């Protein structure tokens, strides 16, 4: 990779109490690419994303964003988070705010964008994601798929350098998964750099430029989607994919 990677992780280690979740993870994400993190539940996919956004403090190793080390204790954490958008599995919309307020909160309060401008951009994004009429609604009046799309708009509203998607379809009814994945597909076409933890193997295979299989706290196998899904090198990757196929998820 000649270009500076948007995100780079080196020997990242993270434990909670006695249990070690990440025991030395290396990762590189090139600009305008999509990286899919796959692996069993509890393999550390979500933790990895939370570490990348500094929501968790890592025990060891280092993380760079656009070539700048963000795990340096002197780095401004708020400034780092401003450049990274996150979409959570459980949406985490703010229930006391309307859709529009959810989206314009960060642009207005963090980036100092004037209200009218922030709202105009929010409405434009909502329109693009098929949520044009929902700006004044409260999140609990929306379906899961709509809430998740609002959460994506909220993350995009600050024009992040990198988008982290943490199992964003895991809490959705099957018929609502498609509408959310469509949005991710469109974002890829626009050149957004994304890292997504997912159980949707078919989707990972389709959109990901790079697939990383996490197991036992390390990236056990990495490669193009074709390689990891088509001819996995590691026995454990093969076993994991076989289980997924048996469960009818691929």
């Amino acid at each position, binding site marked *: 990779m000649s270009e500076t990677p948007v995100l780079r992780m080196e020997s990242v280690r993270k434990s909670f109490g006695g249990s070690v979740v990440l025991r030395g993870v290396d990762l590189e994400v090139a600009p305008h690419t999509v990286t899919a993190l796959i692996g069993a539940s509890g393999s550390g996919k979500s933790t990895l994303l939370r570490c990348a956004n500094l929501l968790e403090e890592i025990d060891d190793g280092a993380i760079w964003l656009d070539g700048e080390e963000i795990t340096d204790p002197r780095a401004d954490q708020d400034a780092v988070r401003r450049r990274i958008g996150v979409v959570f599995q459980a949406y*985490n919309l703010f229930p006391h705010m309307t859709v529009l307020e959810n989206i314009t*909160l960060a642009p207005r309060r*963090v980036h100092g964008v004037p209200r009218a401008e922030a709202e105009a951009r929010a409405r434009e994004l909502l329109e693009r*994601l098929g949520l044009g009429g929902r700006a004044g609604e409260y999140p*609990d009046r929306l379906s899961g798929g709509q809430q998740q799309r609002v959460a994506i708009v909220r993350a995009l509203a600050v024009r992040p350098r990198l988008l982290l998607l943490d199992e964003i379809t895991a809490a959705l009814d099957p018929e609502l998964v498609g509408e959310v994945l469509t949005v991710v597909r469109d974002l890829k076409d626009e050149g957004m750099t994304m890292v997504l933890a997912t159980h949707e193997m078919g989707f990972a295979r389709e959109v990901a430029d790079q697939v990383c299989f996490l197991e036992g706290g390390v990236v056990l196998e990495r490669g193009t989607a074709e390689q990891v899904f088509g001819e996995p090198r590691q026995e454990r990757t093969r076993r994991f994919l076989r289980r997924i196929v048996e469960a009818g998820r691929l």
Partner: protein
Amino acid sequence: MTLDKGELAESSGEPDDYVPSQRRLDRERYRRARARRATAIGALSTLVTGAVLYLVVVNAPGWPRTKETFFDWGYAREAFPKVLEGLWLNVRLLLVCGAAVLVLGMLIAVARTLRGPVFFPLRVLAAAYTDFFRGLPLIINLMIVVLGVPALRLQGVTLDPVLLGGTALTLTYSAYVAEVFRAGIESVHPSQRAAARSLGLSNRQALRYVVLPQAVRRQVPPLLNDLVSLQKDTGLVSIGGAVDAVRAADIIVGRSLNYTPYIVAGLVFVALTIPMTRFTDWVTARMDRRRAQGGVT
């Protein structure tokens, strides 16, 4: 898998030409009959209970004397305007102390949730404050402040029993209210703070825009409950000699040795708190309904 944005699912709630079935009508008739019966039983049992209570009190051996000293119409009429005049002081105390309590309580609650070593002394101070003033009986707090502070003869410190009494009330109640706010802050799920931080909001901004608005909304019923309680405890400032509703009654009792004015003052307080209590119930019920409707609160 792929869905066009145009055909994203929307549920339809259009009216149709539904006619209730006989089964539904029968069920509803049965329920109405049962409701009527329940109302009748309720009314009857209330009547019987009331009658029994009345007979027991009226036939008590000391009733004639009690009636004279506690329920004298003449004294009641004399006391009522004075008590009402005094009540104005209670109402003003409630408004001023209530506002002060909310502000101070919020500050203490926020101080207790601050993280980081810099805030350690502030956290300890806030915790000590709530522990102390929640444990200290209000009446003792009042005596210390209202009677003790003037005894110090400090320059520039007020001797006004109303101001001092209000201060004591604020001290105690802000400790209660701080705990209510703190419970509210802690009840907001950590994922909300995580979402706020991931958007780049600072800790303070996350608290201000995301955590506190949700915390306060949830704590409205218990807060109103504390305000109702504060409302009647404003009557305690009378121990310092401030002429509120209780003290106004006291003055007449001291002169006449008839206790009717106390009953009048008591009823006036009850009359004042009832609207507040009903309002609290109404707010609580409304919030419960909201919660039942929408999942995330």
